[in-house]
């Protein structure tokens, strides 16, 4: 279904979602809601590939509430057998699946105006934005933080470490001795990213120059 690009014709759930941003809350580490998320996709092409699942957990006051976790699986219009071995989601598996539009609706209800966190966040957010755009909706309005930026800034500045290095979720999890049992399920990766967020911000906020805003990604990244 395509919507005309006039604001009043946006569906109600989008209006409700926008409504959350009206309070213009100043985002703070100790009080704001953060949503750590991960998507599993059929591949890395933003036009061809599709999301298979979205997993997320929310963090408030440095706590993760298990009951407030988010986990959905999407019907697959595009199937890429090459990535099945990574995410383990089959096209006709027995997990309950919903349509992309349904998924996006539920996701918007879940995130509200939370600050979104993900590892290599630009990728996941762009995937979600692509889905929104396909439905005739604009991009997400939320602030976004990449846990890799957080981690990179906890590392000492040293000439012996390559500063351009892109730390993978596995690298960081290993450095922090986080269990890797649930790698490559959306929820599992979201939880790992949440731990990395909690740990890195604990370290970073000790510096008087730390500002959460400095880590918000520019919206042209996705």
């Amino acid at each position: 279904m395509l919507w005309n690009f006039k604001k009043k014709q946006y569906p109600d759930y989008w209006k409700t979602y926008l409504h959350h941003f009206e309070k213009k809350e100043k985002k703070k580490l100790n009080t704001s809601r953060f949503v750590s998320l991960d998507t599993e996709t059929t591949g890395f092409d933003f036009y061809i590939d599709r999301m298979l699942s979205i997993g997320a957990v929310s963090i408030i006051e440095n706590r993760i509430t298990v009951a407030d976790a988010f986990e959905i699986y999407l019907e697959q219009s595009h199937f890429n057998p090459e990535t099945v071995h990574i995410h383990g989601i089959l096209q006709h598996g027995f997990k309950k699946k919903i349509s992309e539009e349904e998924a996006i609706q539920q996701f918007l209800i879940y995130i509200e105006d939370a600050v979104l966190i993900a590892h290599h966040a630009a990728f996941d957010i762009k995937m979600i934005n692509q889905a929104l755009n396909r439905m005739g909706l604009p991009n997400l309005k939320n602030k976004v933080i990449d846990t890799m930026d957080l981690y990179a800034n906890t590392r000492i500045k040293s000439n012996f470490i390559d500063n351009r290095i892109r730390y993978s979720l596995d690298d960081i999890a290993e450095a922090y001795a986080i269990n890797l049992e649930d790698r490559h399920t959306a929820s599992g990766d979201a939880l790992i990213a949440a731990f990395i967020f909690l740990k890195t911000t604990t370290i970073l906020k000790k510096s008087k120059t730390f500002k959460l805003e400095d880590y918000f990604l520019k919206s042209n990244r996705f």
Partner: protein
Amino acid sequence: MKNTIAERISDFIKNFPPFDQLSKGDLYAITKEVTITYLEKDKNVYVEGEVPHDRFYMIHKGAIALKKVINSKQETIDRLDEGDIFGLRPLFAKENYATDAVTEEESILYSIPLATFKPLISQNKDIVDFLIESFASNTENPFSKELHGTLIDHRLDLVANDKELFELQPVRYTKKVITAKGETKIKDIGQLMKRHRIGSIIIENDHVPVGIVTDADLRNKVITGEHTIEDSASQIMSTPVLCYPKSVSISQAQLTMMKHHVSHLCVTEDGTPNSKIIGVISQQDITVMRGSNPTVLMKAIKRSKSTKELKHIRKRIMVLLEGFMEQNIPLTQTSKIIFELNDATVKRIIERCIQKMDRQPPVSFAWMSFGSQGRKEQLLHTDQDNGIVFESVKENELEAVRDYFMLLAKKINKRLNAIGFDFCPADIMAKNPKWCLGLDEWKQQFNQWTSNTGNDEILLSSIFFDFDITYGDANLTNHLSEHIFEITKNNHLFLSKLAASALRSASPLGFFRQFLVEQDGAYKDFFDIKKRAIMPISDAGRLFALSNHIKNINNTAERFERMAELFPEDKEFYLSCSYTSKALLKFRTKQGLLHNDDGRFIELSALTKEEKMKLKRCFKTIAKVQELIKLKYNVNNFM
């Protein structure tokens, strides 16, 4: 909605009592309501006197100390670790918390609402029993043991300072019991003992203990020729076995052993020889629990069978260190003992990791420790700095050989991290391909550092020149030492640069004889004893050692002692340097023990006047040594 995270939490908590008694559905009902909390080190979960939260806690990762003020001194009354539950009793008793619960290391906790847990209790008799037992054992000993998961195998971690309570505590027995059948051949019994490094084997029949074969039986009945190794165990075993229920106290177990002249007791379900074996208590276990003495710890390290066990032993080494510091034992002795224990711990880890590899090392190798560990100055838990040198191989085999050692290093680095040696922030670890090199490659590397020397090279030199072999073939490291002396011998340019770098942190006292403190970051207004005092003195020591061909001495204090021998005219000065290096190390260690960290940053306001004076005296020596370096080495061109 499916909740994978709740399922994973179920997978974890179902391993620990009382949750092992619950059905999958009940578990899921609980874990869905869990909150996960991340806490850094030294944070309170709750404090004494606080109104109970509506939830209790289970440790997923990390460790918690329960502390209480006893005779106006805060004492640790129990230490809990992964899988243990705490903060439950006050909820039932409707009392305020009787202790502080403090994170001893960074921890991830699951908090479980009582409201979800309570309804399940009434339906499950096993859980009721577990709770009653736990709470009952508490009444005897009200300040200890909130609730212990009983899965922890071979716990060594007992708090040293509650000696009065100690006698009545139940014994922590070994749960992985090695058993054999009566018809097992004696030689197989011997093999079994060797493999598991134990001194006794329980002989069972249908899970019921029928006898025990110990070292003494082998000595008295086999070596004497009475029996051959082809005979069966039942012919030499002692029977019946002394059995006790698991609640037997430490003192009771010990008295029984003395009375019957035995070194092992068997723990059975109902405490009689007619029920199932659930554990074994050895004299050794009790000795280990009783004391933090170096010999016992060393033995425990050598017998350790898991990383977790080593982690507990490491904690006890810290208790020992604390004792040494309190009793003001000379630092030289303290360093040596702690070094030996740490060294044995690392060796044990390497040994175990080699066993875990699919094959033996393809060529000989050595595990090298750098920096403070290489200088034998590492008393506290600090970062790991290490590397591997292996025998030079043909170019076409090089990468395959390196792959093997990197895989091995990865295992070792990971376990060192698990027991408390943090990963090196600059990645100076053997798992980094840059520091897992063949002998020729290392030589090349040192050539490069000493011939084409920039600031980075000097910095690296200061870390790598203090290497010490921890494990493996000493020929390799000796070759490397020789090589380094060869290439630095008449390399005045390099020595001058090294000298200049030894001066890079100027005297730690500012213009008005104030301490220079940190300007920003987590340690604003703290004094960085490592950067401003320990590094200058150890840099100086290294410089003197290299330029005066002092071989095989890495320890800074010892290097200066050697200098005093070489230059008797300046003996007093060099000995004062040696003293300064020890004093600073002691300072750092005390600070570290006080704050449960690496002691690097010192809060000046917390120091006594006397301590400040002492520090300032050390700084004077550092200033003098730096003056001497300026005079002796042609450094002006490099400043």
